[in-house]
C-alpha cells in the first residue's frame, strides 16, 4: 500500500531533472561528433589514386602489422594487468603493500619515452651492445623487433587494466569468493569462474583503453620505424598532402573501433554484476617460500623495466645535459602542463559522469547514441586536432562571426587559438578514458540503494550528492587521474591547438625529439613522469586508508 505514493514521488522527481541533463549530455555527444563528422565527410572527395597506390604497395602489410600489434598488446596487457592485480589483492607476499601502488607508476611514463630509452640502451650503439661486442666479440643485433614494440607498449599500457581490475577485485566481497571455495572450487576455479567474470566489465574497459591507445599511437611505432595503419594516415597527409585521404583512412579506424565496442556491448548484453554485502574484512591468501619470492620477483621485474629503467636513464641524461634548461621558461612550461591537465580532468570527469548517468537511464537505442561519445579516443591525436580546428572554424565563420557582427562587436576568434579549443580537444579525446572507471563503478551500485533513498523521500539531486557521488568516488578519482596523466602526456593536439605562449612540457619534448636530441628531452620527460606520479600516489593513499 505504501508503494503507490513513493512511485509517484520518484517519477515526479526524476522528470524534473531529466530533460535538462539529457540535453546537456546530448550536446556533449554532438561536440564529440563534430570533429568526427569532419573526418567522415572526407569521403566526399575523390582520392582513388592514393587508395590504389596504398592497396598496391603497403596496405596489406600495414593491416597485418596493426593486427599483430593489437593482438600482442591485448594479450600482454591482459596477462600483466590481471595477474598483477589478482596477486596484489588476493595474496600476501614480501613487498605486497608497496607493489600495490608502485605497479601503477608505469602509467606516468609516456610510451614514446620508454621507446627511445629502450632503443638508446639496447640498440647496437647503446652501452649494452657496445660492451658485449667489444669485450666478447658478440655480433650486433637490431632490437627494433615486432616483439619489442609490443612489449614497450604493453609495459606502459598494462596499468589501465591493472588499476581497473584491482578496484574490481577489491570491491568483490571475499564472501563471494569464499562461498565459491566452500562449494568446492579450488583457488584457480574461484578465480576463473567467479572473480574474473565479475570483474569483466572493468577488465574489458581497461583492455579496450589500451587497445585504442595502441591503435592511435604514432610516436612509439615511429621510433621503431614500425609501420602500422596510422603510418598510412600520416603518409597520406604529410607525404601526399591529402588531408582528405588521411581522414578517409582515419574513419576506417573509427569504424573498426565502433564495431568492436558495439560487439562487446552486445556480448555483455544486459547482464548486471551486483555485489552482495559490502566487504568488511578482506582475506589474503599468504604465499610462502619460493612461491612468495617468485611473485615478488615478477612484480619487481615488471616495475624495473617499465619504470625504474626509463627514469634512471632519463636522470642520467638530464644530468649530462646539465641544469641549463632549468630557467624561468621551464617554470612556465610546468605551470601550463599542470593547469591544463587539472582543468581538463575536472571537465572531462564531469562530462563523463553526466554521460554515464544518461546512458544508464536511457533505452537501448539512446544508449548507442551516448556510446558514440567514446569514439574520440580512437582517432590519432593530430587527426582529431585537425578535426577540431576545422569544425570550430566552421562554427565560428557560420555562427559566431555573424553573431558578433549582429551584436555590433568586432569579429574575433573565441574558439580556435584559445584555451577553449584545446580543452575541448582534451575532453573529446579522453572521455573514453574517464568513462571506463565511472561506468564500471556505476554498474556495481545495487539499484536498491538509490531506490531506497528515493522511497525515503530524497530529491534527485540529493540522491546524486549523497548516494551516487560517495559511492562513485573511487571510480571518479581513478577517472580524474587517468585523464590528468593522459593530458600531461598528450602531444599532437597540444601542439596544434595551444594559444601563443602556452607551451607545455610535451611541446618541449617534441621540439627536442623531432631533431633526434633525446638527451635534451630527458628533463621535461622526467618532469612529466613526476607530475603524473603525484595524483597516482594521492589516490593510492586514499584507497589504502
Amino acid at each position, binding site marked *: 500500500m505504501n508503494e503507490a505514493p513513493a512511485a509517484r514521488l520518484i517519477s515526479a522527481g526524476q522528470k524534473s531533472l531529466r530533460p535538462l541533463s539529457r540535453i546537456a549530455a546530448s550536446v556533449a555527444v554532438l561536440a564529440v561528433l563534430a570533429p568526427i563528422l569532419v573526418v567522415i565527410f572526407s569521403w566526399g572527395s575523390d582520392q582513388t589514386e592514393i587508395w590504389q597506390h596504398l592497396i598496391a604497395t603497403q596496405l596489406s602489410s600495414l593491416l597485418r602489422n596493426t593486427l599483430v600489434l593489437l593482438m600482442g598488446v591485448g594479450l600482454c596487457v591482459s596477462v600483466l594487468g590481471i595477474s598483477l592485480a589478482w596477486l596484489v589483492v588476493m595474496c600476501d607476499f614480501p613487498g605486497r603493500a608497496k607493489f600495490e601502488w608502485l605497479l601503477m607508476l608505469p602509467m606516468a611514463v609516456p610510451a614514446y619515452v620508454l621507446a627511445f630509452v629502450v632503443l638508446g640502451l639496447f640498440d647496437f650503439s647503446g652501452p649494452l651492445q657496445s660492451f658485449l661486442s667489444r669485450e666478447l666479440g658478440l655480433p650486433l643485433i637490431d632490437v627494433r623487433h615486432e616483439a619489442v614494440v609490443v612489449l614497450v607498449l604493453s609495459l606502459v599500457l598494462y596499468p589501465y587494466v591493472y588499476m581497473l581490475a584491482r578496484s574490481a577485485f577489491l570491491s568483490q566481497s571475499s564472501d563471494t569468493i569464499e562461498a565459491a571455495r566452500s562449494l568446492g572450487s579450488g583457488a584457480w576455479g574461484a578465480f576463473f569462474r567467479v572473480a574474473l567474470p565479475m570483474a569483466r566489465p572493468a577488465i574489458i574497459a581497461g583492455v579496450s583503453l589500451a587497445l585504442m591507445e595502441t591503435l592511435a599511437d604514432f610516436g612509439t611505432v615511429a621510433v621503431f*620505424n614500425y609501420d602500422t595503419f596510422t603510418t598510412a594516415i*600520416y*603518409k597520406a597527409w*604529410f607525404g601526399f598532402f591529402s588531408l582528405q585521404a588521411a581522414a578517409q583512412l582515419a574513419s576506417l579506424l573509427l569504424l573498426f573501433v565502433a564495431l568492436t565496442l558495439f560487439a562487446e556491448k552486445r556480448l555483455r548484453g544486459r547482464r548486471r554484476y551486483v555485489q552482495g554485502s559490502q566487504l568488511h574484512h578482506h582475506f589474503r591468501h599468504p604465499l610462502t617460500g619460493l612461491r612468495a619470492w617468485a611473485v615478488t620477483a615478477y612484480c619487481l621485474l615488471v616495475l624495473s623495466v617499465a619504470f625504474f629503467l626509463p627514469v634512471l636513464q632519463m636522470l642520467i641524461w638530464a644530468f649530462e645535459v646539465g641544469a641549463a634548461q632549468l630557467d624561468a621558461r621551464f617554470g612556465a612550461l610546468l605551470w601550463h602542463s599542470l593547469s591544463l591537465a587539472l582543468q581538463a580532468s575536472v571537465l572531462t570527469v564531469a562530462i563523463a559522469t553526466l554521460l554515464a548517468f544518461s546512458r544508464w537511464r536511457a533505452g537501448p537505442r539512446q544508449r548507442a547514441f551516448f556510446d558514440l561519445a567514446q569514439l574520440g579516443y580512437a582517432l590519432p591525436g593530430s587527426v582529431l586536432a585537425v578535426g577540431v580546428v576545422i569544425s570550430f572554424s566552421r562554427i565560428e565563420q557560420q555562427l559566431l562571426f555573424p553573431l558578433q557582427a549582429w551584436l555590433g562587436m568586432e569579429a574575433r576568434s573565441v574558439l*580556435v587559438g584559445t*584555451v577553449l579549443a584545446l580543452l575541448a580537444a582534451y575532453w573529446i579525446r579522453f572521455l573514453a578514458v574517464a568513462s571506463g572507471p565511472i561506468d564500471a563503478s556505476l554498474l556495481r551500485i545495487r539499484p536498491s540503494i538509490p531506490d531506497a533513498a528515493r522511497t525515503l523521500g530524497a530529491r534527485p539531486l540529493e540522491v546524486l550528492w549523497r548516494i551516487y557521488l560517495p559511492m562513485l568516488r573511487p571510480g571518479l578519482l581513478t577517472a580524474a587521474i587517468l585523464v590528468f596523466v593522459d593530458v600531461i602526456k598528450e602531444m599532437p593536439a597540444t601542439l596544434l591547438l595551444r594559444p601563443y605562449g602556452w607551451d607545455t612540457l610535451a611541446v618541449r619534448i617534441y*621540439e627536442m625529439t623531432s631533431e633526434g636530441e633525446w638527451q635534451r628531452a630527458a628533463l621535461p620527460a622526467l618532469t612529466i613522469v613526476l607530475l603524473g606520479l603525484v595524483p597516482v600516489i594521492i589516490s593510492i593513499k586514499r584507497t589504502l586508508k
Partner: protein
Amino acid sequence: MRSVLVIGLALLLAACGEGPESQKADEGLVVYTARKEHLIKPLFDRFTAQTGIPIRYVTDAAGPLLARLQAEGERSRADLLITVDAGNLWQAAEAGVLQPIESDVLASNIPSALRDEGNRWFGLSIRARTIIYSTERVKPSELSTYEALADEQWTGRLCLRTAKKVYNQSLVATMIAARGEAETEEIVSGWVKNLAVPPFSNDNKVVEAIAAGQCDVGIVNTYYLARMVADDPSLPVTMFWPNQQGEGADGRGVHLNISGAGITRASQHVAEAQQLIEWLSGTDAQLQLALLNQEYPVNPQVSLPEPLTRWGEFEGDDIPVAEAGRLQGEAIRVMDRAGYR
C-alpha cells in the same frame, strides 16, 4: 573531492580570463613555424631588439600548421609560415595560403633556385643531404654518387633513414627529375637491397650505426653529423660530397634542401612580415642561422663561418628546390614500390 573541484573551477576561470587578454596585443607579427623553437627564437629576439616589432609564434610540424592555416582562412592571425623542406613550402603555395612579395632585397640575397618563381616563398638556409662513411672501413675513393650506393659492393653495408621523412622524399624527387622515374626506381631498389638493417627513424641513428660498426655508409643532412662531431671529435664518421664530377646527372652536385618562409594571404602586417624575411636573408641573420644549427647560408655574399669550413667546399645541385615539392608524390610512390620503408 570537493576541494579538487574547487581548484579545477578556479583554474578554469583563470584560464578563460587569461585567454582574451593574451590576444589583446594585436600589433607585432604572428609566425607559424615548423623550425624548432631553439633554432629560431634567438633570431626572433634579435629582430625584435633591433626593430621593436614583437613576434609571437606557434611551433608544430608543417602538415598540421598548413591545415590550421587553411581552416582559419581569411581570419587567420598568422602573418608568416616558416617551414623546413621545400616540399612543404611548395604545398603551402599550391594550397593558396601564401601571397607573392616583390622585393629587390630578397631577389639579390637569395639565388633564384632557392625561392619560388612566383615569389610566394623564400629559402632562408640550405640543408645539404650528403653521404657519410666510416673512416675505419671505407676509403673516400670508393665513393662517387648517391646512385653508386646501389652498387653490389655496398651489399649489407648501407644505412638509411626512413622513407617517410621528407628529406629522403626530396632527395629521390630530384633524382627523378635528373634520371626519370624508371631509372630512379632501380636505384632505390638497389639501396634497399644493400641495407644492413631496416631504415632508422632519424639521421642521428644512422650516424650512430656507422660509428658502432653496424654499417659503413649512409645518407644524412650535414648538420646532424656536424653536431655530433662537435660533441665528440673522435667520432670515426665523416662526410663525402657526392655527384661532384662527371657528365649530366652524375655531376649534378649535392642534394640541397632549404628551410624557408612565406607571407600568408591573410596577413594584416605585410610590410613588417616582409621586413622580417628581408632581415633574415641579410648577412647578420644568415651567419646566426648557420651557426645555430650548422646549416649553410642561402645568401652567397655570406662567407662560411668557422665550424662549417671544416667540411670543405662543394657544388650543390642547382635544380630549383620547388621541383622537390612538385615531384614529392612521385618520389613516395617510387620508394613504396621499391620497398623502401
